[in-house]
């Protein structure tokens, strides 16, 4: 097919195009649906018995807020990548680093709590009685599917960055939600079964994005 024929074909099939909504609108829409979805999952899985007590635990609330902020920032940035001409500016670099930094802070907080005793984490990883990591993964499946279905509508060029940030956003919410369903507050358990999964899922997101976001 020569260029003239191609242009004719493209023009013949032209229909009014619905413009892509702003990244902020998309991220808020996605976040509200995801939060609702995770709330339903948490109720189905069963909320922890001392949930009313945890409402007075300042650090627990602070943790939840940090997770939400990290998720909102990462989600917003991943939706920004839907436009091909989007480039990470200084502000967006700071925002991306902030969302990753929040999780590094949360992980290092608990690492300090256990005095960097990595054998404790290793024990918790293989603790079959409390496999909350499966819950974190399970909670993430539907929001990740929804996220990629939105990202596919755009023209993502920096697929790995978009995938990592998007999935990090989902994993942040899933991890925080799983804290509301698990009654264990042992730092080693929180690290091994709740927080480290955020980065594991994030890296899976890179692989998924490379495959799914091709256009």
């Amino acid at each position, binding site marked *: 097919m020569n260029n003239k024929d191609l242009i004719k074909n*493209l023009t013949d099939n032209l229909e009014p*195009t*619905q413009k*892509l909504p702003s990244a902020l609108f998309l991220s808020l829409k996605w976040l509200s649906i995801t939060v609702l979805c995770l709330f339903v999952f948490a109720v189905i899985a069963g909320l922890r018995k001392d949930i009313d007590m945890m409402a007075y635990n300042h650090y627990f609330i602070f943790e939840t807020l940090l997770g939400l902020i990290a998720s909102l920032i990462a989600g917003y940035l991943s939706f920004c990548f839907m*436009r091909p001409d989007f480039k990470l500016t200084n502000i967006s670099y700071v925002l991306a680093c902030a969302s990753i930094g929040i999780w590094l802070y949360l992980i290092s907080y608990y690492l300090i709590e256990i005095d960097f005793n990595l054998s404790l984490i290793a024990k918790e990883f293989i603790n079959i009685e409390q496999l909350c990591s499966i819950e974190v993964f399970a909670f993430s499946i539907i929001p990740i599917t929804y996220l990629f279905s939105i990202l596919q509508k*755009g*023209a993502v060029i920096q697929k790995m960055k978009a995938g990592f940030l998007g999935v990090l956003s989902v994993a942040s919410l899933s991890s925080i939600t799983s804290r509301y369903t698990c009654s264990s507050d042992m730092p080693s358990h929180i690290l091994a079964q709740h927080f480290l999964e955020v980065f594991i899922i994030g890296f899976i997101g890179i692989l998924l994005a490379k495959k799914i976001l091709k256009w």
Partner: protein
Amino acid sequence: MARSQQGDKQAYTQLLTSLQSILQEYLYKRIFDPSSVDDVLQNILIAVDKAKATYTPSKPFYPWLYAIAQYKVIDYIRQQERKIAKETEFEPISETFCAPETNKETEEAFELIHLALEKLPEKKRNIVTLLKIEGYSIEEVAEKTGISIANVKVTAHRAYKDMRLTIEKLDKKYD
């Protein structure tokens, strides 16, 4: 582009046509194989069409276009690299075929077959030549020689048997 997003076909044709020369110039600087320029150009035009919803009219058009063009050029380069990596190195077949020992063996085999063929009675030789050297099918040989298909098969079978015996005898003689 803004008018194209509203469904203006004329504006869209104008846009895509004008993009051709701009993109050709862009591609000739980046792609060393001139025969691939048109392919990449078409890929970019298709990508522009797919991504048209992502263009914001309030923002400049060219950064958006060149981002897509660059993406497709990188895609093309990666494809070429993958293609080169997959291609197996050409084995020097000539060395095998031209190896003096192999050639000698092949020549000897041909000579034996030729002698065995010459020793066949005319009818059998004719059928083997038509079948194995000229490449006709059994049906075609039957039609050409005026013999039934079954007869051609039987004659060919006997001819091969005779040839095998002759070759064995000649082989022993040479050894």
